[in-house]
């Protein structure tokens, strides 16, 4: 009779469901793992930071304490953006530039550019280093195929521009949506 059949159908569905629930579980995990893997390059990994005389400079960090620790800049510049409030500022410390962006009443780190070989990244790279050294520090995968190594982590990228197989510029930059 029909009700028994329906009970049977239900049983089948349940089993089907449970089996597929298992499949769902595993696929969920797969998805998560994938996200985690992808994240290595873009979201979860430790962001690259620049440290100068013990002062850590991370992208998007509030800049006030950093400026205080760094002392007076050799030169300073500021820029407005059309129609918007706030100033983009840049500070030059001889061996590197520090750029900031405004948000609310505060300024935050937007970019750091290293300009001479007296300073180096936390991974030990400085201007003039060889291609091999860079690849050792950031992996050959990070090469963009033209002239630079680009390592992304979290909401920032570290760009190392090469000129004749020598490092010519090192730039930390915050990434915005």
């Amino acid at each position: 009779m029909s009700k028994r059949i329906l009970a049977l159908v239900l049983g089948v569905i349940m089993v089907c469901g449970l089996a597929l629930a298992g499949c769902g579980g595993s696929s969920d995990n797969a998805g998560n793992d994938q996200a985690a893997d992808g994240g290595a390059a873009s979201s979860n990994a430790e962001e690259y930071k620049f440290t100068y005389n013990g002062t850590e400079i991370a992208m998007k960090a509030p800049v006030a304490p950093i400026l205080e620790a760094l002392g007076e800049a050799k030169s300073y510049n500021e820029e407005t953006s059309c129609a918007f409030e706030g100033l983009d500022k840049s500070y030059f410390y001889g061996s590197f530039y520090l750029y900031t962006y405004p948000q609310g009443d505060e300024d935050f780190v937007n970019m750091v550019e290293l300009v001479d070989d007296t300073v180096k990244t936390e991974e030990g790279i400085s201007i003039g280093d060889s291609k091999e050294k860079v690849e050792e520090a950031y992996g050959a995968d990070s090469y963009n195929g033209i002239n630079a190594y680009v390592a992304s982590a979290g909401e920032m990228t570290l760009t190392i521009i090469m000129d004749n197989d020598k490092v010519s510029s090192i730039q930390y930059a915050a990434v915005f949506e």
Partner: protein
Amino acid sequence: MQELLGILEGLHPEVDFNTCTNLVDGKILDSFDIVTIVAEVNATFDVAIPAEELIPENFNSAQALWALIERLDEE
């Protein structure tokens, strides 16, 4: 019929099953009651009411339900 009324009154003593004709539509019987009735009917009359007959028309009054039982008994 008397036995059926007995079953129904056992569930809802406050209802007059002789006259009431909107047992389901009037939300007097809920699905738990209906299933209980089916089990009781099965036990008392040895008539199995299939799921497709569990529709308001068959359960709105004691008469309708009795008619259903008689029809199923014949088949």
